[in-house]
């Protein structure tokens, strides 16, 4: 039943089915009814991680190391928990910057560096081609195995098998064709391939079902469940020792190192980048995928140990390769249908990987290696090619064929010496070298191009030395002593035990050592060189755009740093050449509509449009190449450090300006408050003055009424009343004079009669003037006037007014009966100082500051409204200052008040 032709038919029938699914998926996408836009298909497409390595190799690995196959799946599970932090950021950045490969990501992050992009591409191709060859090897081996059904003791010697007889050769061509048809159908600016994703998701279901079928068959068909199986396996010493890990530091360090490696690989593998990032339809799908994908891995690994242990019990002599147990077990038990299903499952695991990996690698080769090199050709003729789109597509297609054939060649020349898993782990270690540059670049702005180049270079070199050179040894090209004794007999440099370190899940596990040293050196070089080298302005810009992507994307996603202009026809022509006329016109039309632009009126593209065009191109040819192409038509205002500084400077000016504004506003607010205060003071003044005017007026009027209404009033009473009227009228006159004086002082219309004045007489005149007042309150007044007080220049009457004001003020504040006022004159070299001291209640320091302001009256608690207009002290201050003197007050509550002023001596 399972003859060669049947198998061939089934194999190609299966690949044909993939074509059909992919075709349907693309058709639905074109109609806008996507079948891949949901988290379940997305998670299934991520399961392209599980390749022939998982399907066949894990069992082989488990039969050697027991649980040692598992870290490869635990690592991605741990990375999935960080997925929302790390993967989502990568996806977000890639969508904004239209990044389509891991090489482009690294290149773009570090200043759109062409060198870096090329380096990543070369490492990826060198690292991943063996991995592709592993898949082809699995297809070839299982094909030869199943066609010899039911005999499982097949020894394939590939040196005798020409590729013409090897079905893997034809499968390889079929896969290349598939990748070309569905991976490079047209030049997409987003590089999403829905048909391809649909086919990959389907393959993930097939391989899972097939593996579960064989697992259930052996565990529950041949044995009585897990308990029975492990119980019987425990009776075989060689199997029982696989139940545990050796409890040595080396083993646990190796175990951790394998988990770490797989964590990095899930981010850095080109095919994982393709399905996780590029083919992602909606970031929100990641939320479900970060648990669906680990769940998928858990389920597909459930039966790995049972299959491995049963295989070891069924084929104890070791003549059957453990990598083929999955297929051999159903074969020896005559399950031809199951064997065929397993074969198809393995085929699906292998083909899914080859398809996605070649598409990813060909994009890289085209965008980050070939196009940049061609763009370097002088005279720029290359970028003027009329049918650039067609040219790019043929580069991609050639790259796909190149990669697949390279994989096939590798498998025929070297691959047969290795188990499936060890080849895969070597590839993992190669791509893990991208991790420091990628993850560092996501969160650390300081990482720069030189650092990334150094890290990648050192890591790649150690990878070559510890893993690749020894594999050449095993193929016989370098003497065996290189591994056993080290180069030139230097033991410390033995590639598998570099510097004497020997960690690993088993004693002969070179991977853990290689991972440890290469990643350590990589990180050290990346960080160290980044610290000690300068970054260009472009690197700074890109670093900020990547690390702060969520901040910038909230601001609209456009780079605030880009400055360049171009003519719209030039840009349109460039886009047309690279993307095709129709596509370019459509993109520009959409852009114009979204921003409400009318291009009929202007021919000059602004910075926003230039950047939009560059991003469109970046999707098709990579960011570094897009930059070169766009700059060929852009009148570039070169983004030097000056520009960046200029932008910073503008920002600084804006900040300074706003600070000035703030100060001015504060000043205005203060002035406004002062005005309001003055206004209310004026109101208060008017009410005070009118009140003061009304009191004597009321007195005058009421007494005049008494005189008028009482004709019989005695003469003495009449004289008494007339006296009051006169006194009150005088008070009125005095008040009105004060207000008038104040007006004159304020407006500067006061007339001064300056003369030589003896201040002693001023004091005596003033005291005499208000003696009545003093006597009424029975206040004691002391004069302390020295001999020969110098003559001063001044207006005698005004100065008397000053003294009267001050003494009257003191009288007002003095307590009756016990009051005491001291007036003293001190003679100083250039002036005289007059102090008027009372023993009243004193005034607080706040009140001292305002006491000279007009309309101010010091309120006394419990004493009601003070008498006077509130102008006296203000007038006094004006007069003193007019004479060139100073006036101040000293007081403490309950310790009296001293008003002092100086007047300059006459010259």
């Amino acid at each position, binding site marked *: 039943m399972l003859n060669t032709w049947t198998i061939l038919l089934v194999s190609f029938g299966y690949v044909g089915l993939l074509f059909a699914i992919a075709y349907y998926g693309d058709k639905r996408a074109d109609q806008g009814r996507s079948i891949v836009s949901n988290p379940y298909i997305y998670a299934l497409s991520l399961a392209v991680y599980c390749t022939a390595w998982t399907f066949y190799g894990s069992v082989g690995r488990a039969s050697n190391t027991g*649980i040692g196959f*598992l870290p490869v799946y*635990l690592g991605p*599970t*741990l990375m*999935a*928990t*960080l*997925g*929302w*932090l790390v993967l989502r950021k990568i996806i977000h950045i890639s969508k904004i910057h239209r990044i389509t490969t891991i090489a482009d990501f690294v290149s773009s992050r570090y200043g759109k560096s062409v060198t870096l992009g090329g380096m990543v591409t070369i490492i990826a191709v060198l690292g991943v081609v063996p991995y592709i060859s592993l898949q082809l090897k699995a297809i070839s081996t299982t094909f030869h195995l199943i066609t010899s059904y039911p005999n499982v003791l097949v020894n394939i010697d590939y040196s005798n098998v020409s590729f013409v007889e090897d079905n893997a050769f034809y499968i390889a061509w079929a896969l290349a064709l598939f990748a070309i048809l569905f991976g490079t159908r047209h030049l997409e600016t987003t590089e999403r391939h829905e048909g391809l994703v649909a086919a990959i998701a389907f393959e993930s279901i097939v391989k899972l079902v097939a593996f579960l079928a064989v697992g259930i068959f052996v565990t529950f068909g041949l044995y009585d*469940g*897990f*308990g*029975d199986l*492990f*119980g019987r396996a*425990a009776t075989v010493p060689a199997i*029982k020792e696989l*139940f*545990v*890990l050796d*409890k040595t*530091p080396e083993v*646990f*360090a190796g*175990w*951790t190192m394998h*988990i770490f490696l797989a964590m990095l690989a899930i981010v850095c593998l080109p095919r994982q980048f393709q399905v996780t990032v590029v083919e992602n339809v909606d970031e929100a799908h990641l*939320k*479900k995928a*970060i*648990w669906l994908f*680990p*769940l998928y891995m*858990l389920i597909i690994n*459930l039966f790995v*140990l049972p299959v491995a242990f049963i295989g070891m019990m069924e084929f104890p002599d070791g003549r059957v390769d453990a990598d083929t147990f999955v297929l051999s077990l159903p074969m020896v038990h005559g399950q031809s249908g199951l064997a065929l299903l397993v074969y198809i499952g393995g085929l699906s695991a292998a083909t899914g990987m080859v398809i996605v990996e070649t598409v990813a690698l060909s994009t890289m080769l085209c965008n980050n290696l070939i196009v940049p090199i061609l763009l370097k050709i002088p005279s720029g003729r290359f970028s003027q090619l009329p049918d650039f789109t067609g040219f790019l597509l043929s580069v991609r297609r050639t790259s796909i064929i190149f990669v697949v054939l390279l994989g096939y060649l590798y498998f025929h020349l070297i691959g047969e010496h290795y188990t499936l898993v060890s080849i895969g782990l070597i590839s993992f270690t190669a791509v893990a070298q991208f991790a420091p540059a990628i993850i560092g670049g996501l969160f650390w702005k300081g990482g720069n191009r030189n650092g990334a180049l150094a890290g990648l270079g050192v890591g790649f070199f150690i990878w070559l030395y510890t893993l690749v050179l020894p594999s050449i040894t095993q193929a016989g090209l370098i003497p065996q002593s290189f591994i056993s004794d080290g180069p030139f007999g230097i033991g410390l440099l033995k590639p598998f035990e570099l510097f004497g370190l020997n960690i690993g899940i088993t004693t002969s596990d070179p991977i853990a050592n290689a991972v440890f040293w290469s990643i350590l050196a990589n990180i050290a070089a990346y960080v160290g060189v980044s610290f000690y080298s300068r970054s260009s302005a472009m690197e700074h810009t890109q670093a900020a755009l990547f690390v702060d992507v969520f901040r910038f994307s909230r601001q609209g996603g456009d780079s605030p740093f880009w400055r360049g202009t171009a003519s719209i026809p030039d840009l349109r022509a460039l886009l047309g050449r690279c993307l095709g006329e129709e596509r370019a016109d459509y993109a520009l039309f959409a852009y114009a509509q979204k921003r409400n632009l009318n291009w009929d009126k202007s021919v000059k593209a602004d910075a926003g449009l230039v950047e939009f065009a560059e991003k469109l191109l970046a999707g098709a040819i990579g960011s570094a190449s897009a930059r070169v192409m766009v700059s060929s038509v852009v009148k570039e205002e070169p983004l030097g450090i000056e520009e960046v500084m200029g932008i910073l400077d503008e920002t600084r000016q804006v900040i300074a300006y706003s600070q000035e504004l703030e100060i001015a506003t504060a000043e205005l607010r203060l002035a406004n408050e002062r005005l309001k205060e003055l206004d209310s003071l004026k109101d208060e003044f008017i009410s005070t003055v009118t009140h003061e005017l009304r009191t004597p007026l009321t007195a005058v009027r009421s007494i005049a009424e008494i005189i008028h209404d009482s004709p019989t009033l005695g003469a003495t009473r009449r004289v008494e009343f007339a006296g009051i009227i006169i006194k009150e009228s005088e008070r009125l006159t005095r008040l009105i004079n004060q207000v008038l004086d104040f007006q004159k002082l304020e407006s500067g219309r006061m007339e001064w009669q300056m003369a030589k004045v003896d201040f002693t007489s001023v004091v005596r005149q003033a005291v005499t003037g208000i003696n009545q007042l003093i006597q009424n309150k029975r206040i004691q007044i002391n004069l302390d006037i020295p001999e020969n007080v110098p003559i001063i220049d001044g207006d005698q009457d005004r100065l008397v007014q000053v003294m009267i004001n001050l003494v009257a003020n003191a009288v007002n504040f003095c307590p009756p009966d016990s009051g005491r006022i001291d007036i003293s004159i001190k003679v100083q070299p250039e002036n005289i100082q007059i102090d008027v001291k009372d023993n009243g209640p004193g005034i607080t320091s706040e009140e001292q500051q305002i006491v000279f302001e007009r309309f101010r009256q010091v309120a006394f608690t419990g004493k009601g409204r003070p008498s006077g207009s509130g102008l006296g002290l203000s007038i006094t201050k004006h007069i003193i200052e007019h004479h060139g003197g100073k006036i101040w007050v000293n007081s403490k509550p309950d310790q009296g008040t001293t008003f002092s002023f100086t007047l300059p001596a006459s010259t």
Partner: protein
Amino acid sequence: MNDDHSKIGRLTAVFFLGVLLLTYPILTLFDHSISLFGIPLLFLYLFTVWAGLIGLIVLATRGALRNRLSDTDKGR
């Protein structure tokens, strides 16, 4: 955004828990040649922890009950 921050926080906690449970020294506690329910202890332990981590990721990404309620409110 707040919801997002707490989500990242919860998931990061799951990550550290995973690292703790899956590596030295906790792992050595279960590295013994005995069986539980007929299954070697180490195998049972690793697969159980693995499944547990997946469960915790589900819980962490769902967000707190209150957040979900307020999300539905926004929907209306």
